[in-house]
């Protein structure tokens, strides 16, 4: 009886796993098919041959390559900036003696609850005034500011658990605060920095609203928004659409395959951003 119960549980759990994976499996299938196969044969049929031509076509014909490299550029720049600034603030909040560290921490944590949509119009207005509309900085700065709270939250627990003894020994040896931060503390936080970077990367790579609002030039768009417009032109060529979407999904899936433990850890640590 217990055995049957357990078997049933597994059926349900594996069933859910299939549901979670199925749309991606289906996308992979149709990215390798042509329209005839998609519209005339069963949606679940395997492609008659692996048509990588869809991938080649969208990579060479559209701006997908440009979007792809833009996405990498914005993502990496914003992640580096966010990690450096967030590490410095977290260091100051947890290790330095000053009044107001609680208020500053509170300001950053309240930032978690603020919807980006409520800032969109003024940001658009300011960026237009200072000439940052259609400029990579509008994205990099916005990503950095909005990811700062979650990043500090992930770093915070790690910093609080760090021992003070090494710092005290360094002070006795005459080290400056900058020396302690850059040479001692920052290297010690490498594991949590890796986790926070990956979480940041996933958010930045997938971001939609800021790009859609601040960037209108095709040369500067990212994959998420570029794809959306590109699909408009190809609305009937499902194979091409599938291949385009795969370009946005594959990097994230690869990273997940390699670093899934760190990602799981980071999402659990930063669970406030839904």
């Amino acid at each position, binding site marked *: 009886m217990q055995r049957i119960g357990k078997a049933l*549980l*597994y059926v*349900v*759990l594996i069933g*859910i796993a299939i549901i*979670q994976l199925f*749309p*991606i499996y289906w996308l992979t299938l149709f990215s390798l098919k042509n329209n005839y196969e*998609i*519209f005339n044969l069963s*949606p679940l049929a395997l492609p008659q041959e692996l048509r990588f031509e869809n991938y080649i076509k969208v990579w060479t014909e559209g701006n997908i390559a440009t979007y792809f490299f833009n996405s990498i550029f914005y993502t990496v720049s914003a992640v580096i900036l966010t990690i450096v*600034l*967030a590490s*410095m603030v977290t*260091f*100051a909040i947890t*290790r*330095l*003696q000053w009044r107001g560290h609680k208020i*500053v921490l509170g*300001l950053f944590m309240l930032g978690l609850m*603020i*919807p980006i*949509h*409520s*800032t*969109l*119009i*003024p*940001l*658009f*207005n300011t960026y237009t005034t200072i000439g940052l509309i259609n400029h990579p900085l509008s994205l990099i*700065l916005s990503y*950095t*500011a*909005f990811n700062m*709270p979650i990043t500090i939250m992930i770093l915070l627990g790690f910093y609080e658990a760090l021992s003070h003894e090494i710092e005290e020994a360094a*002070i006795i040896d005459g080290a400056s*605060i900058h020396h302690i931060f850059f040479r001692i503390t920052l290297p010690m936080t490498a594991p949590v920095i890796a986790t926070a970077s990956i979480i940041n990367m996933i958010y930045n*790579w*997938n971001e*939609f*609203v800021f790009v859609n609002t601040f960037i209108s030039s095709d040369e500067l768009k990212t994959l*998420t*928004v570029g*794809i*959306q417009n590109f699909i408009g032109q190809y609305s009937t060529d499902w194979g091409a*659409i599938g291949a385009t*979407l795969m370009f*946005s*999904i594959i990097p994230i*899936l690869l990273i*997940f395959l390699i670093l*899934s433990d760190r*990602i*799981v850890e980071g999402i*659990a640590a930063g*669970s*406030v951003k*839904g």
Partner: protein
Amino acid sequence: MNRLKASKLDLLIYVGPALLLLLGIVYIPIVQTGYFGLMEWNGIGEKTFVGLENYLALLKDSKFWGSAYHSLILAVASIISLIFYLTISFVLASRIKGANLLRKIYLIPMLLASVAIAQLWMKIYNPSNGMLNIFLMKLGIENPPAWLGDANLALYAIIVPTIWQYAGFYILIYYAALKNVPESLVEAARIDGASPFHIALKIKLPLIMNVVKVTIVLAAVGSLKYFDLIYIMTGGGPSGSSEVMASYMYNTAFNKFDFGYGSAIGFFLLVICLVATFIIQRLSIADKDLY
């Protein structure tokens, strides 16, 4: 506490840049949003001060209240789906082999760009060629619905991918919380003859109640801010039937160029998010006293 002594210059270096970005890109803009709400403004030309006109119009705007109602439906649906996620987490955490792998698989949809998720589900819902309707027609249903094109169904058709997308996220959080429940308590109850169901409901659930409350805040506030999927899949249509507060704000400002009114909606959205957070947290503090 053995904090290091810091000079004013040190603080300026370490706190200054991050704080400046936070104030400049998050806090000053939300104040500006409230202020722009007092203007009549097309986004490019001069702003004309109109006082509370936009805010008063908002109170009488049935489209806005419709969008607020749709946001509420989303919030209720995502809070109800928490029960489903919680149940799965209980099963996963009950010493099941492969639980680690399964919860990682469940997480995958959350890693994908909303554009990809939206396009994928639009293909599934496609009235003539979509997988869903092909399947329904094979079952003998002759006129399956148009899903996203049907004003009565569009909003609910969008709720399904949201439940799909966030399942792994909440399961991950619940699973981590359940793994932190001390084994000794569970063991003691088992020796006293409590059934697994009883242990789950009377021992484990109360112990992770704080985490459950956090997820309720997350689900509620997340739903109020919900935008990407709706904007891409239906744009709020057909005829406003899937419009939510964020998409109404976006469409008003960036597609109809009514930035003053859009700002008023944006400010309302902010207030509602903060009030919702506050209320749910207050409720959970009140609850805590009961134990």
